């Protein structure tokens, strides 16, 4: 590597190879950052690009910066990004559909123009001889940086420090939310639930009337319909609710029918069948939006209890 740092108009083939490969990766990463639908993916692409850049720093003899790049950016900054993404919602995928008229075309135009001009500018700058960092890094890159940093740039350095402190404080001030109202007591919370007509009693356990009591199988209501309430919310989120098998339902229906004939009354069967159908679409359309499903189940259960 040291060879490359001597004055030269061109670099070692090794670096060339490395450049062409990693450069491609970097560009792809950049494009990914811009074009990915889900921001998580964008973040990851960006991270990739940054790592590549770190390597390039090292290749350019900026060892300290290379490390800092990895530590600060890929380490700290990107994590920060990811945390925020979690806050905002990982699953949220924003549409790339443009809303401002003509924005895309303008961007394309400006982007192309800008890029081409910039590259043309660099090209025409006529920089072919590289001094290289040989003697600059002679006393060690870090020491060199430290020297100039604490001698001629010390003032800027101090100011930057102040900036960082300010930034930290600012972040706290901005994100910290002062509790304006008193914390609610148990009683008030209960009353609130009643007022909102939420599901009052504790939720039923899963696996009731079930062949086995796995957590991902909803318990069945007296009429045999499965109650989503009994399944863990997270599983419901993920849409991983396993449904009771068909034949079980069928047997249940048959049993119902027989008891019905025996008792000389009918009509429940239809209910049972409808219930079976219910399970289907309940499960299917529970996945996307959770609130609706929960609410629906909530009042269904309630009229069950009323029937009991």
């Amino acid at each position, binding site marked *: 590597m040291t060879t490359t740092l001597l004055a030269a108009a*061109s670099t070692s083939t090794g670096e060339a190879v490395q*450049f062409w490969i990693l450069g491609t990766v970097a560009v792809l990463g950049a494009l990914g950052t*811009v074009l990915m639908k889900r921001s998580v993916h964008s973040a990851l692409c960006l991270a990739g690009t940054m790592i590549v850049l770190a390597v390039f*720093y090292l290749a350019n003899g900026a060892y300290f910066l290379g490390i800092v790049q990895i530590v600060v950016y890929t380490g700290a900054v990107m994590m920060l*990004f990811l945390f925020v993404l979690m806050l905002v919602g990982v699953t949220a995928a924003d549409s790339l559909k443009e809303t401002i008229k003509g924005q895309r075309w303008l961007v394309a135009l400006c982007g192309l123009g800008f890029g081409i001009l910039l590259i043309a500018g660099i090209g025409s700058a006529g920089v072919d001889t*590289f001094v*290289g960092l040989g003697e600059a890094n002679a006393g060690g890159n870090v020491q060199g940086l430290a020297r100039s940093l604490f001698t001629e740039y010390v003032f800027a350095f101090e100011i930057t420090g102040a900036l960082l402190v300010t*930034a930290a404080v600012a*972040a706290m001030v901005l994100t910290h939310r002062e509790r304006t109202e008193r914390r609610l007591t148990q009683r008030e919370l209960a009353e609130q639930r009643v007022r909102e007509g939420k599901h009052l009693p504790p939720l039923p356990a899963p696996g009731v009337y079930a062949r086995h009591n796995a957590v991902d199988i909803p318990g069945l209501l007296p009429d045999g319909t499965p109650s989503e309430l009994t399944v863990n919310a997270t599983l419901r989120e993920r849409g991983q609710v396993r449904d009771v098998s068909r034949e079980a339902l069928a047997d249940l229906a048959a049993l119902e029918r027989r008891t019905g004939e025996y008792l000389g009354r009918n009509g429940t069967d239809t209910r049972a069948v409808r219930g079976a159908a219910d399970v289907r679409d309940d499960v299917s359309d529970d996945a996307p939006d959770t609130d609706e499903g929960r609410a629906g189940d909530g009042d269904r259960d309630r009229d069950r209890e009323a029937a009991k």
Partner: protein
Amino acid sequence: MNPVNYLFLAALLFTIGASGVLLRRNAIVVFMSIELMLNAANLALVTFSRMHGNLDGQIIAFFTMVVAAAEVVVGLAIIVTIFRSRHSASVDDAGLMKL
């Protein structure tokens, strides 16, 4: 190869980043694109320092990083606050300037 290619790469990344800023509505992605631009600039600086054989370029790059870190901190904090207040991280929704 001529190290000037690093500059071309930097230019490319910068342009992509800029377009990203202009194209994406999600504030966080916009932010990432800005970071991308900053990094491109850093790459250029580092290359320059190599070109001229003194460390000032790296110093500047260093400062850039620090400042970028600070900026990210504040920026994300702002995004979070906005998200809290209006349940959206879209820059278009923050349109109080709109007529």
